[in-house]
Structures are given as C-alpha cells and as structure tokens.
C-alpha cells in the first residue's frame, strides 16, 4: 500500500492511503469460471473432457445491477455485497480487461465465441462499446452481446454492430408477460423492467442484425406451462429469432432460491419440442396439451422419415443453446451453467454420446407422448 506526504510549514504530514481505484468496467470485467479455466486464470478441469472456447464476460460495477429479478444471483435485494454475489451459482473471477484481451489473443486458436453480458447500469452502454473496441484491436473471434434493454436504443445497437458484434442476445427469460411482470417488473426494489421495452429492443435488434442473428433467452421453471413455452418458441422462430433454452436453477438466497428446478422429464421434452419448432418447422398442429397446458402429445408423421426419432438420435436437441462459432459449430456452450457437476447434464456442451442418449431417452419417456398421425 502506498502513502503520499505533504510538507506544510516544515511539518511532514502523513496522508491517508490514496483511495484504491474501483475495479469496475470497462477496465475490469468478470469472466465465467469456465472461461477462467480455459484462459488459465484458474486451475481446474471439467468432469468430462471436451474442447471449450466460449468466453463469457460480465460487466462489473460496485453499485451492482439495477435490476432485481427474482431468480438472479445479481438481484439488488439478494442479501450480500455485490462483489461477493455469485452469478449462476458460482464465482465469476474479476480480471483486468487488457490482461484478458492478451490472454484471449494468446489462446486465439481455441476461442469459439465471445459474449459480453451487460447489466442494467447507467454506464453499461458506453463501457460495453469500449470493451468491444478494445477486444477488436487484438481478437477477431465472433462476438455476441447479451444486452440490457433499458440501457439501449436503435443508435446504440447499431454502434455495437459497427464495432464488431455480430449477434445480439436478449435475456427475456420469462415466456409470458404475466410471468415477466411477476419476476422482473414488480420487484421489491421498485423500478422493475418492462416487457414492452424488452420486445421493442428485440424488434430493433432483429431489424439491424438480420435473421437468425438475434436470440432471446427463455428460462424453463419460472411457472410457465409447456404450452406457453412452446408458444414463445413458435413466436420467436416465426420472426427468425433463435429461442435459447435455459433451465432454471435455484440461486441460494434469491427470492426463487427455494423453488425446485423443472423435473428432468419435462425439461427433456421441452428441449425436444423446441428443437422440432426450430429445425423441423413444427407448429401448433404437431403438439397436443391438456387443460393445464402440459404437453401430452408430439406427432411423428407416419408417412415421412421418422422426424422425431431422427432428432433424438442426433443429440442436437439436448446440446447447449448458444451462439455459434465461425464455422457454424457450437460457440458458446456454458458447461455446468444450469446444473452442478454432480448432476446429469441439463444441456450438453458437446455432442451427447450413445450412452448419454440412452439416458436421455429414458429420462424423456417419449413413448408416453409420441403419436402417429
């Protein structure tokens, strides 16, 4: 620790140590633990061995995120200091941006996708733009921004693109307006988020970035029905917007901390349904639901190839949804993002093996809902 001193009328006065500069964005960012392992900031490994190159950055402010979402580790009213809060249940190491950029350049050959996650904060736009600019001086891996809609406008989204972002993610999370209001608008801290504003940014981003260059995060486990979730997948795919699927995983001490995650059977079926909507043009006529909106049937066309069976066999429906790498392969795979290493993979950061598929098939109990028509 350094101190400075002043001489006043011959007396040497010791001053208090200079205030430590805040370790905030844009000069400092948090990175996911998986990114920290990949870039050798931390020692450690994954339970199963696979290539990993999706680097996730998160803006950092000592005053924290201004949002207060019920399920989020960074929520304003979640107990604890912001610096100590976990995000997706694990620590996100704080690193100096220039050092991070140097490390990314050093590991360039292994990088598949970069993603900057904004938080709702007054400086978030300017700092994100600055971070993109600095990254682009040394690293040309494809770059996504997971945006904070309250901080954005048409002009600002255009600037991100001009600076080098090729995909935009919007963390819608709740699949209905009612759920959005319950979990994100009507919040204890007041001043919650607006469903309409989120959709306004979705529409502008879609216009600026083009088809299949925008994605909306959808979180399964906030109280939605299967029908509501599938309705959102259809709504987004009809606009050529990717629905990215996330499994709610309770964050300790958050308002949703005591809520269980979706049963694995439901989760697997929703993964499959989303895949069929996105890749096989399945729409309402291919699904049936009970009065409570639970999925009761998926149609396997009898006069065509086995569409559903082929989808399951490919393993793709069960892989992590994320922005692609340059070659179109998986780019952002977020290993252990919505499950612990001791649990079964809710989404696979690699192609599931035949053994994994056997487990998935058992978990899904597809026979119960598959119907020929």
């Amino acid at each position, binding site marked *: 620790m350094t101190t400075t001193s002043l001489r006043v009328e011959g007396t040497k006065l010791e001053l208090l140590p200079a205030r430590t500069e805040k370790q905030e964005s844009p000069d400092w960012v948090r990175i996911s633990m998986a990114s920290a392992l990949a870039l*050798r900031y931390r020692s450690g490994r994954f339970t199963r061995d696979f290539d990993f190159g999706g680097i996730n950055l998160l803006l950092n402010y000592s005053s924290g995120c201004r949002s207060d979402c019920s399920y989020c580790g960074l929520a304003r009213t979640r107990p604890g200091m912001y610096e100590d809060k976990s995000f997706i249940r694990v620590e996100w190491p704080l690193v100096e941006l220039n050092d991070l950029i140097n490390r990314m350049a050093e590991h360039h050959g292994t990088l598949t996708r970069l993603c900057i996650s904004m938080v709702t904060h007054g400086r978030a736009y300017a700092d994100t733009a600055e971070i993109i600019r600095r990254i682009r001086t040394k690293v040309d891996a494809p770059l996504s921004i997971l945006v904070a809609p309250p901080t954005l406008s048409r002009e600002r989204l255009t600037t991100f693109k001009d600076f080098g972002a090729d995909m935009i993610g919007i963390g819608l999370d709740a699949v209905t307006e009612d759920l959005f209001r319950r979990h994100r608008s009507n919040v204890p801290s007041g001043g919650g988020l607006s469903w309409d504003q989120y959709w306004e940014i979705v529409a502008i981003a879609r216009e600026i970035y083009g088809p299949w260059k925008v994605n909306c995060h959808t979180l399964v486990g906030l109280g939605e029905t299967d029908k509501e979730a599938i309705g959102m997948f259809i709504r987004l795919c009809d606009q050529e917007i990717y629905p990215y699927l996330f499994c709610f995983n309770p964050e300790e001490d958050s308002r949703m901390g005591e809520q269980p995650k979706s049963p694995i059977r439901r989760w697997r079926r929703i993964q499959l349904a989303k895949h069929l909507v996105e890749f096989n043009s399945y729409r309402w006529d291919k699904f049936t639901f009970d009065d409570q909106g639970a999925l009761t049937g998926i149609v396997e066309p009898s006069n065509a190839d086995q569409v559903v069976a082929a989808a399951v066999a490919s393993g793709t429906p069960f892989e992590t949804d994320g922005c692609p790498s340059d070659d179109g392969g998986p780019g952002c795979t977020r290993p252990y993002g919505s499950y612990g290493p001791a649990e079964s993979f809710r989404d696979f950061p690699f192609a599931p093996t035949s053994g994994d598929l056997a487990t998935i098939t058992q978990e899904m109990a597809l026979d119960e809902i598959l119907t020929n028509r």
Partner: protein
Amino acid sequence: MATQNIDGFEIRTDLVYDVGAHLWMNVTQDGIISVGVDPLGIETFGTLAQIALEAPPINLERGMHFGSMEAEKFVGTLVSPIAGLLTERNEVVMADPGIVERDPYGDGWLIKIKMSTDPTTLPYLTSGADAVIEAFEKRVAAYRLEGVLAE
C-alpha cells in the same frame, strides 16, 4: 516431516502415494492409515464445494468408492487405494471442504483405514523420497501441458 517444493506444490516425501488418484497415505498407529488428497490434486480439482464420505465401518477393497469431491466444474470419485476396514471419516471436512485446501496433510485428512499390510510394500503405490519427487514432477509437467494449471 520431509517436504519438497515441486513446481510450487509443497509435497510431503515421507508418505505413500497413489499418485494417479492424488491420495496420500500415512501409517499412524496400530496399522491405522490416514488417507487424504495431495496438494496437486486439490489444485486441479478447482475450488472445492462439497465432500461426501462413506460412513464407517465398511470393508473397503482396493478401487472401491469411498466418497466424492465436487468443485465448481468438476466432480471426482474418491476410490480407495488399499483394502482394509474404513474405521473413521473426517466429519469436519464434510462440513467445511476448505480445510482440505488449507491443510491437506493435516486437519484435511479424509478417512482412516485399518490395514494389516504395510502400504510401502504394495507395488502399485509410490513411496520413498526420490520416487515421490519423480512421480510428482512428471504429473505436474503433464498437467501444465494439458492446461489444467493456472498460469
């Protein structure tokens, strides 16, 4: 207590090791053997979140599961390096896995096994200062190459 710094890891050279499983063994008294995780193993797991250990008494065979260690992105099965009777488990580390990181050779021990054979005579285990140092040097080099250790 003899230790050697091997590329930043303080390794006790007077113990018996199952180097591949990162377990050390220390014959304490009356044929009771303490078993714990070595510092290199702890480093490669990542920050420990949870330790589960089987409750005694259990007759362990070599290769039998006796617990698991979970870190942020990794879960590893703990497999017994020797056959014997599991007589005790360390309840304290189950409540606070950080102890294993802070004091791997001391309070961070995991289980105690009663065994009639001297582990230093078992050919699949590593003992003797020179052999221990050589084995750990090779292991650290392999991990660096693999990218498991921070730089």
